[in-house]
Protein backbone atom coordinates (compact mmCIF):
# COMPACT_ATOMS: atom_id res chain seq x y z
CA UNK A 1 0.00 0.00 0.00
CA UNK A 2 2.82 2.38 0.84
CA UNK A 3 3.41 5.08 -1.73
CA UNK A 4 0.04 4.73 -3.44
CA UNK A 5 -1.58 7.37 -1.31
CA UNK A 6 -1.02 11.05 -1.82
CA UNK A 7 0.62 12.62 1.16
CA UNK A 8 -1.46 14.56 3.62
CA UNK A 9 0.82 17.36 4.49
CA UNK A 10 4.45 18.15 4.75
CA UNK A 11 5.99 17.20 8.06
CA UNK A 12 4.37 14.02 9.26
CA UNK A 13 6.06 14.38 12.59
CA UNK A 14 5.90 17.17 15.13
CA UNK A 15 8.13 17.92 18.07
CA UNK A 16 7.27 16.55 21.46
CA UNK A 17 5.10 18.89 23.47
CA UNK A 18 7.32 21.04 25.69
CA UNK A 19 7.54 19.88 29.30
CA UNK A 20 5.23 22.10 31.31
CA UNK A 21 8.05 23.09 33.68
CA UNK A 22 10.04 24.40 30.73
CA UNK A 23 7.05 26.45 29.60
CA UNK A 24 6.68 27.98 33.06
CA UNK A 25 10.40 28.66 33.20
CA UNK A 26 10.37 30.31 29.77
CA UNK A 27 7.37 32.45 30.64
CA UNK A 28 8.88 33.58 33.94
CA UNK A 29 12.13 34.41 32.21
CA UNK A 30 10.20 36.49 29.68
CA UNK A 31 8.48 38.56 32.35
CA UNK A 32 11.68 39.09 34.34
CA UNK A 33 13.71 39.97 31.24
CA UNK A 34 11.09 42.44 30.05
CA UNK A 35 11.16 44.47 33.21
CA UNK A 36 14.89 44.25 33.77
CA UNK A 37 15.57 45.39 30.22
CA UNK A 38 13.19 48.32 30.36
CA UNK A 39 13.89 49.46 33.92
CA UNK A 40 17.62 49.48 33.28
CA UNK A 41 17.33 51.01 29.87
CA UNK A 42 17.87 54.40 28.42
CA UNK A 43 15.64 57.46 28.09
CA UNK A 44 16.83 58.61 24.68
CA UNK A 45 16.71 56.67 21.42
CA UNK A 46 20.07 54.99 20.74
CA UNK A 47 19.68 53.73 17.21
CA UNK A 48 18.30 56.55 15.08
CA UNK A 49 20.98 56.60 12.36
CA UNK A 50 22.05 53.68 10.15
CA UNK A 51 25.70 52.97 10.89
CA UNK A 52 28.07 50.03 10.50
CA UNK A 53 31.41 48.77 9.22
CA UNK A 54 31.52 49.42 5.46
CA UNK A 55 32.73 46.48 3.38
CA UNK A 56 33.51 47.80 -0.11
CA UNK A 57 35.33 44.63 -1.17
CA UNK A 58 32.35 42.44 -0.32
CA UNK A 59 30.06 44.92 -2.07
CA UNK A 60 32.12 44.66 -5.27
CA UNK A 61 32.02 40.86 -5.10
CA UNK A 62 28.26 40.71 -4.45
CA UNK A 63 27.46 43.30 -7.11
CA UNK A 64 29.70 41.74 -9.75
CA UNK A 65 27.55 40.62 -12.70
CA UNK A 66 29.13 37.15 -12.67
CA UNK A 67 28.26 36.51 -9.00
CA UNK A 68 24.83 38.02 -9.39
CA UNK A 69 23.87 36.11 -12.53
CA UNK A 70 25.34 32.81 -11.32
CA UNK A 71 23.20 32.99 -8.16
CA UNK A 72 20.14 34.22 -10.03
CA UNK A 73 20.31 31.36 -12.52
CA UNK A 74 20.86 28.84 -9.72
CA UNK A 75 17.72 30.04 -7.91
CA UNK A 76 15.78 30.12 -11.18
CA UNK A 77 16.91 26.57 -12.03
CA UNK A 78 15.81 25.24 -8.61
CA UNK A 79 12.40 26.85 -9.14
CA UNK A 80 12.09 25.44 -12.64
CA UNK A 81 12.82 21.90 -11.40
CA UNK A 82 10.22 22.32 -8.64
CA UNK A 83 7.65 23.54 -11.18
CA UNK A 84 8.43 20.59 -13.46
CA UNK A 85 7.68 18.31 -10.50
CA UNK A 86 4.44 20.19 -9.81
CA UNK A 87 3.11 19.91 -13.35
CA UNK A 88 4.68 16.69 -14.62
CA UNK A 89 5.60 14.76 -11.48
CA UNK A 90 3.57 12.11 -9.64
CA UNK A 91 0.96 13.02 -7.00
CA UNK A 92 2.81 11.09 -4.32
CA UNK A 93 4.88 11.62 -1.18
CA UNK A 94 7.95 11.49 -3.39
CA UNK A 95 6.96 14.67 -5.25
CA UNK A 96 9.39 17.39 -4.14
CA UNK A 97 7.09 20.36 -4.76
CA UNK A 98 5.15 20.44 -1.46
CA UNK A 99 8.41 20.24 0.49
CA UNK A 100 10.04 22.80 -1.77
CA UNK A 101 7.22 25.26 -1.10
CA UNK A 102 6.47 24.63 2.58
CA UNK A 103 10.05 23.99 3.73
CA UNK A 104 12.66 25.41 1.34
CA UNK A 105 10.72 28.55 0.45
CA UNK A 106 8.53 29.21 3.48
CA UNK A 107 11.10 28.34 6.18
CA UNK A 108 14.19 28.78 4.06
CA UNK A 109 13.42 32.42 3.35
CA UNK A 110 13.75 33.11 7.09
CA UNK A 111 17.19 31.51 7.21
CA UNK A 112 18.31 33.25 4.01
CA UNK A 113 17.08 36.66 5.14
CA UNK A 114 18.56 36.49 8.63
CA UNK A 115 21.94 35.29 7.36
CA UNK A 116 22.28 37.21 4.10
CA UNK A 117 19.98 40.24 4.32
CA UNK A 118 18.08 41.23 1.20
CA UNK A 119 19.37 38.52 -1.15
CA UNK A 120 15.89 36.98 -1.47
CA UNK A 121 14.58 39.97 -3.42
CA UNK A 122 17.82 40.33 -5.42
CA UNK A 123 17.59 36.71 -6.60
CA UNK A 124 13.79 36.55 -7.07
CA UNK A 125 13.09 34.26 -10.07
CA UNK A 126 10.36 36.55 -11.43
CA UNK A 127 12.85 39.46 -11.38
CA UNK A 128 15.31 37.28 -13.26
CA UNK A 129 12.70 36.38 -15.88
CA UNK A 130 11.66 40.02 -16.29
CA UNK A 131 15.21 41.40 -16.13
CA UNK A 132 14.93 42.51 -19.79
CA UNK A 133 12.30 45.03 -18.75
CA UNK A 134 13.47 48.25 -17.17
CA UNK A 135 12.01 48.92 -13.73
CA UNK A 136 11.88 45.31 -12.52
CA UNK A 137 14.88 45.84 -10.25
CA UNK A 138 14.83 46.06 -6.47
CA UNK A 139 15.63 49.76 -6.37
CA UNK A 140 12.23 51.15 -7.41
CA UNK A 141 10.46 52.96 -4.58
CA UNK A 142 7.64 51.32 -2.59
CA UNK A 143 4.17 52.23 -3.92
CA UNK A 144 1.81 54.29 -1.75
CA UNK A 145 -0.12 51.22 -0.51
CA UNK A 146 3.04 49.89 1.15
CA UNK A 147 3.13 46.17 1.93
CA UNK A 148 -0.61 45.81 2.59
CA UNK A 149 -1.15 43.59 -0.50
CA UNK A 150 1.68 41.43 0.83
CA UNK A 151 -0.02 41.13 4.23
CA UNK A 152 -3.20 40.00 2.46
CA UNK A 153 -1.28 37.48 0.35
CA UNK A 154 0.46 36.16 3.49
CA UNK A 155 -2.94 35.54 5.08
CA UNK A 156 -3.81 33.65 1.88
CA UNK A 157 -0.66 31.54 2.21
CA UNK A 158 -1.55 30.91 5.87
CA UNK A 159 -4.89 29.55 4.67
CA UNK A 160 -3.14 27.27 2.17
CA UNK A 161 -0.62 26.03 4.74
CA UNK A 162 -3.07 25.38 7.57
CA UNK A 163 -6.65 25.16 6.32
CA UNK A 164 -6.86 24.18 2.65
CA UNK A 165 -7.93 20.50 2.40
CA UNK A 166 -5.47 18.25 0.51
CA UNK A 167 -2.91 21.06 0.53
CA UNK A 168 0.02 18.82 -0.28
CA UNK A 169 -1.48 17.26 -3.41
CA UNK A 170 -0.36 18.53 -6.79
CA UNK A 171 -3.98 18.97 -7.90
CA UNK A 172 -4.55 21.63 -5.23
CA UNK A 173 -1.08 23.18 -5.34
CA UNK A 174 -1.25 23.77 -9.11
CA UNK A 175 -4.15 26.17 -8.65
CA UNK A 176 -2.40 28.03 -5.85
CA UNK A 177 0.86 28.19 -7.80
CA UNK A 178 -0.97 29.57 -10.85
CA UNK A 179 -2.77 32.16 -8.71
CA UNK A 180 0.57 33.26 -7.23
CA UNK A 181 2.20 33.49 -10.66
CA UNK A 182 -0.61 35.63 -12.05
CA UNK A 183 -0.60 37.83 -8.92
CA UNK A 184 3.15 38.55 -9.10
CA UNK A 185 3.73 38.62 -12.87
CA UNK A 186 0.66 40.64 -13.87
CA UNK A 187 1.35 43.12 -11.08
CA UNK A 188 5.02 43.42 -11.99
CA UNK A 189 4.23 44.01 -15.67
CA UNK A 190 1.88 46.80 -14.63
CA UNK A 191 3.68 48.37 -11.66
CA UNK A 192 7.31 47.27 -12.10
CA UNK A 193 9.56 45.59 -9.51
CA UNK A 194 7.98 47.59 -6.70
CA UNK A 195 4.96 45.30 -7.01
CA UNK A 196 7.07 42.30 -5.92
CA UNK A 197 8.39 44.27 -2.95
CA UNK A 198 4.90 45.21 -1.87
CA UNK A 199 2.76 42.20 -2.86
CA UNK A 200 4.68 38.94 -3.23
CA UNK A 201 4.06 37.24 0.12
CA UNK A 202 7.48 35.58 0.14
CA UNK A 203 9.45 38.69 -0.76
CA UNK A 204 7.49 40.86 1.67
CA UNK A 205 8.21 38.36 4.45
CA UNK A 206 11.87 38.00 3.45
CA UNK A 207 12.47 41.75 3.20
CA UNK A 208 10.81 42.33 6.57
CA UNK A 209 13.17 39.84 8.22
CA UNK A 210 16.20 41.24 6.37
CA UNK A 211 15.69 44.25 8.67
CA UNK A 212 16.97 42.19 11.60
CA UNK A 213 19.94 40.74 9.74
CA UNK A 214 23.48 42.01 10.40
CA UNK A 215 23.76 43.28 6.80
CA UNK A 216 22.56 46.62 5.48
CA UNK A 217 23.30 48.71 2.41
CA UNK A 218 24.18 52.24 3.45
CA UNK A 219 24.67 54.60 0.47
CA UNK A 220 25.04 51.58 -1.79
CA UNK A 221 27.80 49.95 0.26
CA UNK A 222 27.15 46.74 2.18
CA UNK A 223 27.82 47.27 5.88
CA UNK A 224 28.12 44.91 8.82
CA UNK A 225 25.63 46.42 11.29
CA UNK A 226 24.01 45.90 14.66
CA UNK A 227 20.65 44.29 13.76
CA UNK A 228 18.93 46.33 16.51
CA UNK A 229 20.28 49.51 14.97
CA UNK A 230 19.06 48.43 11.55
CA UNK A 231 15.54 47.55 12.69
CA UNK A 232 15.18 50.77 14.70
CA UNK A 233 16.68 53.20 12.20
CA UNK A 234 15.16 52.02 8.89
CA UNK A 235 11.80 53.65 8.10
CA UNK A 236 9.05 51.02 7.93
CA UNK A 237 6.86 50.72 4.81
CA UNK A 238 3.13 51.17 5.35
CA UNK A 239 1.53 47.97 6.51
CA UNK A 240 4.66 46.33 7.96
CA UNK A 241 2.85 45.96 11.27
CA UNK A 242 0.05 44.19 9.39
CA UNK A 243 2.58 41.77 7.91
CA UNK A 244 4.04 41.00 11.35
CA UNK A 245 0.62 40.50 12.93
CA UNK A 246 -0.63 38.23 10.12
CA UNK A 247 2.50 36.11 10.63
CA UNK A 248 2.00 36.00 14.41
CA UNK A 249 -1.71 35.15 14.08
CA UNK A 250 -0.98 32.44 11.52
CA UNK A 251 1.71 30.83 13.67
CA UNK A 252 -0.57 30.94 16.69
CA UNK A 253 -3.28 29.17 14.71
CA UNK A 254 -0.74 26.63 13.47
CA UNK A 255 -0.05 25.57 17.05
CA UNK A 256 -3.68 25.78 18.11
CA UNK A 257 -4.97 23.86 15.08
CA UNK A 258 -2.56 20.98 15.57
CA UNK A 259 -3.38 20.55 19.26
CA UNK A 260 -5.45 17.50 20.11
CA UNK A 261 -8.07 19.57 21.93
CA UNK A 262 -8.77 21.46 18.68
CA UNK A 263 -8.77 18.24 16.61
CA UNK A 264 -11.28 16.66 19.01
CA UNK A 265 -13.56 19.68 18.94
CA UNK A 266 -13.54 19.88 15.14
CA UNK A 267 -14.06 16.16 14.62
CA UNK A 268 -16.98 15.91 17.03
CA UNK A 269 -18.77 18.90 15.50
CA UNK A 270 -21.23 18.93 12.61
CA UNK A 271 -19.65 22.05 11.13
CA UNK A 272 -17.15 21.17 8.35
CA UNK A 273 -13.43 21.34 9.16
CA UNK A 274 -12.91 23.92 6.41
CA UNK A 275 -15.23 26.35 8.19
CA UNK A 276 -13.56 25.70 11.57
CA UNK A 277 -10.15 26.29 10.06
CA UNK A 278 -11.11 29.48 8.24
CA UNK A 279 -12.82 31.00 11.26
CA UNK A 280 -10.03 29.84 13.58
CA UNK A 281 -7.30 31.38 11.43
CA UNK A 282 -9.15 34.68 11.02
CA UNK A 283 -9.98 34.74 14.73
CA UNK A 284 -6.34 34.28 15.75
CA UNK A 285 -5.23 37.09 13.40
CA UNK A 286 -8.05 39.31 14.70
CA UNK A 287 -7.10 38.56 18.31
CA UNK A 288 -3.46 39.47 17.72
CA UNK A 289 -4.47 42.67 15.87
CA UNK A 290 -6.92 43.66 18.63
CA UNK A 291 -4.33 43.22 21.39
CA UNK A 292 -1.69 45.18 19.49
CA UNK A 293 -4.08 47.96 18.48
CA UNK A 294 -5.40 48.31 22.00
CA UNK A 295 -1.91 48.61 23.46
CA UNK A 296 -0.82 51.13 20.81
CA UNK A 297 -3.96 53.23 21.29
CA UNK A 298 -3.18 53.42 25.03
CA UNK A 299 0.41 54.38 24.22
CA UNK A 300 -0.73 57.12 21.82
CA UNK A 301 -2.62 58.86 24.61
CA UNK A 302 0.76 59.76 26.10
CA UNK A 303 2.43 60.83 22.86
CA UNK A 304 3.68 64.38 22.46
CA UNK A 305 1.17 66.29 20.27
CA UNK A 306 3.61 66.88 17.41
CA UNK A 307 3.98 63.10 16.98
CA UNK A 308 0.33 62.04 16.85
CA UNK A 309 -0.17 62.02 13.03
CA UNK A 310 1.95 58.88 12.71
CA UNK A 311 0.27 56.34 14.94
CA UNK A 312 2.36 54.10 17.15
CA UNK A 313 1.02 50.86 15.61
CA UNK A 314 2.83 51.95 12.46
CA UNK A 315 5.99 53.07 14.25
CA UNK A 316 6.31 50.01 16.48
CA UNK A 317 5.66 47.50 13.66
CA UNK A 318 9.34 46.59 13.12
CA UNK A 319 9.74 45.65 16.78
CA UNK A 320 7.30 42.75 16.29
CA UNK A 321 9.63 41.05 13.81
CA UNK A 322 11.98 39.43 16.38
CA UNK A 323 8.94 37.79 18.02
CA UNK A 324 8.03 36.34 14.60
CA UNK A 325 11.55 34.95 14.25
CA UNK A 326 11.42 33.44 17.74
CA UNK A 327 8.22 31.59 16.83
CA UNK A 328 9.70 30.37 13.56
CA UNK A 329 12.80 28.98 15.31
CA UNK A 330 10.65 27.26 17.92
CA UNK A 331 8.19 25.91 15.44
CA UNK A 332 10.09 24.95 12.31
CA UNK A 333 13.70 24.05 13.21
CA UNK A 334 13.27 20.27 13.17
CA UNK A 335 10.94 20.42 10.15
CA UNK A 336 13.55 22.43 8.27
CA UNK A 337 16.40 20.10 9.18
CA UNK A 338 14.52 16.88 8.39
CA UNK A 339 12.16 17.72 5.55
CA UNK A 340 14.70 20.09 4.03
CA UNK A 341 16.98 17.10 3.43
CA UNK A 342 14.12 15.13 1.92
CA UNK A 343 13.50 17.91 -0.63
CA UNK A 344 17.15 17.79 -1.67
CA UNK A 345 16.73 14.05 -2.27
CA UNK A 346 13.37 14.08 -4.05
CA UNK A 347 14.31 17.06 -6.23
CA UNK A 348 16.72 14.73 -8.07
CA UNK A 349 13.79 12.72 -9.40
CA UNK A 350 11.09 15.32 -10.06
CA UNK A 351 9.19 13.14 -12.54
CA UNK A 352 9.12 10.11 -10.25
CA UNK A 353 10.77 7.86 -12.83
CA UNK A 354 13.69 6.70 -10.70
CA UNK A 355 16.04 9.26 -12.24
CA UNK A 356 18.91 10.99 -10.47
CA UNK A 357 19.33 14.47 -11.97
CA UNK A 358 21.71 15.91 -9.40
CA UNK A 359 23.18 12.80 -7.84
CA UNK A 360 21.29 13.30 -4.57
CA UNK A 361 18.48 10.76 -5.15
CA UNK A 362 20.24 8.04 -3.20
CA UNK A 363 21.14 10.19 -0.21
CA UNK A 364 19.63 9.35 3.15
CA UNK A 365 18.04 11.65 5.67
CA UNK A 366 20.28 12.34 8.67
CA UNK A 367 17.81 12.15 11.50
CA UNK A 368 20.29 12.49 14.36
CA UNK A 369 18.37 15.56 15.58
CA UNK A 370 15.86 12.96 16.82
CA UNK A 371 18.39 11.87 19.41
CA UNK A 372 18.35 15.21 21.20
CA UNK A 373 14.76 15.99 22.16
CA UNK A 374 15.74 18.04 25.22
CA UNK A 375 18.18 20.10 23.16
CA UNK A 376 15.34 20.80 20.72
CA UNK A 377 13.03 21.80 23.58
CA UNK A 378 15.64 24.20 24.96
CA UNK A 379 16.23 25.63 21.49
CA UNK A 380 12.49 26.24 21.15
CA UNK A 381 12.29 28.09 24.44
CA UNK A 382 15.53 29.99 23.78
CA UNK A 383 14.25 31.12 20.36
CA UNK A 384 11.06 32.49 21.83
CA UNK A 385 12.72 34.15 24.84
CA UNK A 386 15.56 35.77 22.86
CA UNK A 387 13.13 36.94 20.17
CA UNK A 388 11.03 38.51 22.88
CA UNK A 389 13.97 40.25 24.56
CA UNK A 390 15.14 41.76 21.26
CA UNK A 391 11.59 42.90 20.50
CA UNK A 392 11.26 44.60 23.89
CA UNK A 393 14.53 46.47 23.47
CA UNK A 394 13.61 47.57 19.93
CA UNK A 395 10.12 48.69 20.97
CA UNK A 396 11.64 50.71 23.80
CA UNK A 397 14.13 52.45 21.53
CA UNK A 398 11.34 53.31 19.11
CA UNK A 399 8.82 54.40 21.74
CA UNK A 400 11.06 56.85 23.63
CA UNK A 401 11.24 58.96 20.46
CA UNK A 402 7.76 60.31 20.86
CA UNK A 403 6.96 59.78 24.53
CA UNK A 404 7.38 62.62 27.01
CA UNK A 405 10.34 61.87 29.29
CA UNK A 406 8.35 61.93 32.53
CA UNK A 407 5.83 59.33 31.34
CA UNK A 408 8.09 56.95 29.41
CA UNK A 409 7.75 54.08 31.87
CA UNK A 410 4.01 54.10 32.48
CA UNK A 411 3.22 54.71 28.82
CA UNK A 412 5.11 51.60 27.77
CA UNK A 413 3.40 49.21 30.17
CA UNK A 414 0.49 48.23 27.83
CA UNK A 415 2.70 47.39 24.84
CA UNK A 416 5.14 45.47 27.06
CA UNK A 417 2.20 43.55 28.53
CA UNK A 418 0.97 42.65 25.03
CA UNK A 419 4.43 41.43 24.04
CA UNK A 420 4.52 39.26 27.17
CA UNK A 421 1.09 37.88 26.20
CA UNK A 422 2.27 37.10 22.65
CA UNK A 423 5.38 35.35 23.91
CA UNK A 424 3.76 33.38 26.71
CA UNK A 425 0.92 32.49 24.35
CA UNK A 426 3.49 31.10 21.93
CA UNK A 427 5.13 29.05 24.67
CA UNK A 428 1.81 27.75 25.93
CA UNK A 429 0.80 26.68 22.43
CA UNK A 430 4.04 24.71 22.11
CA UNK A 431 3.00 22.93 25.29
CA UNK A 432 -0.15 22.04 23.27
CA UNK A 433 -2.52 20.57 25.84
Amino acid at each position, binding site marked *: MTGLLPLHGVGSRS*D*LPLPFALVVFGAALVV*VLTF*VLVLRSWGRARWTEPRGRALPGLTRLVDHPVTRWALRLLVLAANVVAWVALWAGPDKVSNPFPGFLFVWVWVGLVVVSLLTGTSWSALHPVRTLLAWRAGSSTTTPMPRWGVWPGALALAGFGFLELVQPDRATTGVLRWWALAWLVWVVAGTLRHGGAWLASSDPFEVYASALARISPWQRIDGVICWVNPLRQVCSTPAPRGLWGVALVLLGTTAFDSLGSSLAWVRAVQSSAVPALAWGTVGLLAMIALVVALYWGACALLDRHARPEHTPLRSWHRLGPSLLPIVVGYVIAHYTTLFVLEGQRVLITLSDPLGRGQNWFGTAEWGVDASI*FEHPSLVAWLQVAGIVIGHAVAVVAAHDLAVRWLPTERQMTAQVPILAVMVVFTCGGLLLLFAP
Partner: protein
Amino acid sequence: MMTRVAVVVLALLVVLTGCSGSSKAPQTATMTIVIADGSVSPNGQRVEVRKGGTVTLEVTTDKATIIHVHGYEIEVQANPGAPTTHEFTADKPGAFEIETHDPAVIVGQLVVKS
Protein backbone atom coordinates in the same frame (compact mmCIF):
# COMPACT_ATOMS: atom_id res chain seq x y z
CA MET B 1 19.40 43.82 40.35
CA MET B 2 21.41 41.37 38.29
CA THR B 3 22.07 39.12 41.31
CA ARG B 4 18.35 38.99 42.02
CA VAL B 5 17.68 37.97 38.40
CA ALA B 6 20.38 35.32 38.61
CA VAL B 7 18.80 33.90 41.79
CA VAL B 8 15.37 33.72 40.13
CA VAL B 9 16.77 32.01 37.03
CA LEU B 10 18.73 29.55 39.14
CA ALA B 11 15.71 28.71 41.29
CA LEU B 12 13.61 28.07 38.17
CA LEU B 13 16.34 25.85 36.75
CA VAL B 14 16.37 23.75 39.91
CA VAL B 15 12.58 23.38 39.80
CA LEU B 16 12.79 22.51 36.14
CA THR B 17 15.41 19.80 36.41
CA GLY B 18 13.50 18.39 39.37
CA CYS B 19 10.33 18.08 37.28
CA SER B 20 11.77 16.78 34.08
CA GLY B 21 13.21 13.61 35.58
CA SER B 22 9.90 12.35 36.92
CA SER B 23 7.94 11.66 33.71
CA LYS B 24 8.62 8.17 32.42
CA ALA B 25 6.50 6.86 29.57
CA PRO B 26 5.43 3.18 29.60
CA GLN B 27 7.28 0.47 27.68
CA THR B 28 4.18 -0.73 25.82
CA ALA B 29 1.09 1.06 24.57
CA THR B 30 -2.10 -0.10 22.90
CA MET B 31 -4.59 1.89 20.89
CA THR B 32 -7.97 0.25 20.32
CA ILE B 33 -9.77 1.68 17.33
CA VAL B 34 -13.43 0.95 16.62
CA ILE B 35 -15.15 2.07 13.42
CA ALA B 36 -18.88 1.46 13.14
CA ASP B 37 -21.57 3.18 11.04
CA GLY B 38 -19.15 5.87 9.93
CA SER B 39 -18.26 6.89 13.48
CA VAL B 40 -14.74 6.45 14.78
CA SER B 41 -13.51 5.94 18.30
CA PRO B 42 -11.33 7.24 19.86
CA ASN B 43 -11.40 10.87 18.80
CA GLY B 44 -7.94 12.42 19.08
CA GLN B 45 -6.57 10.28 21.92
CA ARG B 46 -2.98 10.70 23.07
CA VAL B 47 -0.95 7.53 23.58
CA GLU B 48 2.49 7.77 25.18
CA VAL B 49 5.28 5.26 24.91
CA ARG B 50 8.99 5.17 25.66
CA LYS B 51 11.43 5.17 22.75
CA GLY B 52 12.16 1.59 21.80
CA GLY B 53 8.85 0.43 23.30
CA THR B 54 6.13 -1.52 21.53
CA VAL B 55 2.93 -0.03 20.14
CA THR B 56 -0.07 -2.22 19.33
CA LEU B 57 -2.91 -1.08 17.11
CA GLU B 58 -6.16 -3.07 17.47
CA VAL B 59 -8.69 -2.21 14.79
CA THR B 60 -12.32 -3.34 14.62
CA THR B 61 -14.24 -1.99 11.66
CA ASP B 62 -17.41 -2.62 9.67
CA LYS B 63 -15.88 -1.22 6.47
CA ALA B 64 -12.47 -1.69 4.85
CA THR B 65 -10.06 1.14 5.75
CA ILE B 66 -6.43 2.00 6.22
CA ILE B 67 -4.94 3.10 9.51
CA HIS B 68 -1.97 5.38 8.87
CA VAL B 69 0.71 6.21 11.42
CA HIS B 70 2.32 9.41 10.14
CA GLY B 71 6.09 9.73 10.28
CA TYR B 72 6.50 5.98 10.70
CA GLU B 73 4.67 5.62 7.39
CA ILE B 74 2.91 2.52 8.64
CA GLU B 75 -0.32 1.72 6.82
CA VAL B 76 -2.46 -1.06 8.23
CA GLN B 77 -5.20 -2.47 6.02
CA ALA B 78 -8.20 -3.30 8.22
CA ASN B 79 -11.19 -5.27 6.93
CA PRO B 80 -14.61 -6.06 8.44
CA GLY B 81 -14.78 -9.17 10.59
CA ALA B 82 -12.15 -10.24 13.08
CA PRO B 83 -10.12 -7.37 14.63
CA THR B 84 -6.83 -6.53 12.91
CA THR B 85 -3.77 -6.26 15.13
CA HIS B 86 -0.53 -4.57 14.18
CA GLU B 87 2.55 -4.27 16.36
CA PHE B 88 5.56 -2.04 15.79
CA THR B 89 8.57 -0.65 17.63
CA ALA B 90 8.51 3.04 18.46
CA ASP B 91 12.08 3.85 17.47
CA LYS B 92 11.64 7.53 16.51
CA PRO B 93 10.91 10.11 19.19
CA GLY B 94 8.39 12.86 18.49
CA ALA B 95 4.63 13.28 18.17
CA PHE B 96 2.90 11.47 15.31
CA GLU B 97 -0.68 11.52 14.11
CA ILE B 98 -2.60 8.28 13.71
CA GLU B 99 -5.50 8.50 11.31
CA THR B 100 -7.99 6.37 9.47
CA HIS B 101 -8.56 7.07 5.81
CA ASP B 102 -12.22 6.11 5.37
CA PRO B 103 -13.74 8.13 6.93
CA ALA B 104 -10.79 10.55 7.23
CA VAL B 105 -10.46 11.07 10.98
CA ILE B 106 -7.49 11.63 13.29
CA VAL B 107 -7.96 8.92 15.88
CA GLY B 108 -5.04 9.92 18.00
CA GLN B 109 -1.49 11.00 18.49
CA LEU B 110 1.42 8.74 19.32
CA VAL B 111 3.91 10.47 21.60
CA VAL B 112 7.27 8.70 21.70
CA LYS B 113 9.47 9.97 24.53
CA SER B 114 13.14 9.17 24.84
